[in-house]
């Protein structure tokens, strides 16, 4: 796992504030109800910060952020260099 993925996992654990909960790169986050729709933007902003990319609005669906691994794949696919 990359250092960025590890940082994302730490960010999510902090976001969820659920003691005892562990997640890995492939833990379902959205369909499991761990992350609600109002927290998706927090994941996207963190993803932008970690990848140094811009994730343009309108190109991403919640299912693209289902796992940490999918988030980084999504950034590869739709991310644009920072302006």
């Amino acid at each position, binding site marked *: 796992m990359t250092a960025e993925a590890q940082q994302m996992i730490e960010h999510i654990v902090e976001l969820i504030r659920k003691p005892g909960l562990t997640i890995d790169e492939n833990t379902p986050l959205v369909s499991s109800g761990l992350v609600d729709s*109002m927290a998706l933007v927090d994941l996207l902003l963190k993803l932008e910060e970690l990848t140094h990319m811009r994730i343009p609005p309108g190109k991403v669906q919640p299912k693209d952020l289902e796992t940490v691994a999918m988030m980084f794949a999504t950034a590869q696919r739709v991310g644009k260099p920072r302006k």
Partner: protein
Amino acid sequence: MTGSVTRFRNLIDALAAAPGDRPFVTAWIDEDERDTVTFAEFRRRARLQAKVLRDHSVTVGDRVIVIMPQSIPAMTTFVGAMMLGAVPAFLAYPNFKVESSKYRSGLAGVMANLRAKVVVIDEEFPDDMLGHVSLGAGTRLLRASDCRGSDGDDELPDLENHAGSLAFIQHSAGTTGLQKGVALTHAAVLSQIEHLAHAVNIDGATDCVYSWLPLYHDMGLIACFMLPMVCHLPVVMQSPLDWVMHPETMLQIISEHKCTLAWMPNFAFQFVPRRTPPSRWAQYDLSSARALINCSEPVRSSSMQEFQNAFSTIGLKSGALQSSYAMAENVFAVTQSDINQPSGPTRIWADGQRFRSAHLIDPVAEGTAGAVSFTSSGRLLPGNEVRIASDSGALLSTGHVGEILVKSDSLFTSYYNRPDLTAKAIVDGWYHSGDLGFYLEGELYVVGRKKDLLIVGGENLYPQDIEEIVASHWAIHDGRVIAIGVYNPDLGTEDIVVVAEVERKELLANAVEIEREIRNLVVAGIGVAVRMIFLKPPKWIVKSTAGKAARSTTREKLLKEHPELNVESGESEFA
């Protein structure tokens, strides 16, 4: 727009009167793609949809259900149905998290009640979300791809609908099972728009609406679709999901399109500034906005203040943030704050003790120790009346907190096909809103709710829907589940909190696993995420005399045992 909109016989006449070359709907798809239609093009597309529906035998009075993503085709289908005198209703598009069997059973409930002639879905609609089972006999399914009618010369007959005919049905809650279809006439909708346009000083030459609100919700349907259609204003719209994932787009769209008006629930006022990196604020300009109206959740001045403080540096005018009290049953707004008031909605402080113990408002000076603050939802729209009633039904005078009753010239006719629910809701012409509030110096303040309802991000959820799902878990004692909304100051809206009794105390050892399964069940059932789950031993939940779990007393017990949940600050919501 010139003159009164009540001169129109119906909503279709109002659309027909719009200048053809004026832009109507702009769908903001992404930063490189937008789709704009003029009023003439919108009318043309709606007529095509009407002809397709007519080819499928849709006629006056038939119900037409539209389940399509937020888009221009969804809107033209809706209006096409109205052109035939049929009665359309938008339903929420299935959320990918929801299990198809659960979606189908929710839809089956709505279908059984509405008995629609046709259900229109888009091409990408997932097959497994619909079975013949959920539609029922006599209902046809139309894919939007089947809706390419010929643009022939055959004109549609003139709509014979008079103002008293039903225009459409709007649903009042986000979950499907218990949805009540609010039946509205053309006259009611036109009256509402007449009053609303007056209250917000609509100027047809300069106004432009921005919206991310779902079309199945009254703010999205009335304020951001019917109002622009009848008053001939442009509206720039994006999907709710695109907005919630990128709230910054609101700043971008208002800046680019110089939008002047928007409606949004309370939480959005802090969600946008908190979820847009401050380093990017300066790219935007909100100076075109003349009214951003806080509506459909309890109004909190702290949320509005946060938005004002954040964006006054990028042109947001003082006094641009306003408030309104609205409900699907009244078509939309009952009150509107004075949009010419540069300080925004009136805010008052009252003695906290008197408020809590006697349900009385004793105004005190700002900053007085123990004071609670309330933000006004404004003055009544013309044609609207409000009464405040006690639990026993007695009328209360100014400054007393009680249930808000509404009477108006835009009030709904009935819950469609539900005379039982209608008779409970409208008594002697007064709609019993289930909301609690008070009247003071000509303004209405909404402070809480009498009815059991969670309002999460502006959407209404019935706690029963959540409780039923949680109780279906094998480890949970049937009927011993309570779902409540607890205000989350970080989000500016309510969190869903669940308390549930396990069957046997020993099961608490597996709490983490059981909680995970419950979360999955709730998401799969209705597509919403539970913020916190508290598993308790048997007999923990307070029961009513009838042996049912008592929501309000259990809530009090939970908040007492878990003070970390009790985050209400100086701004109080009446509980």
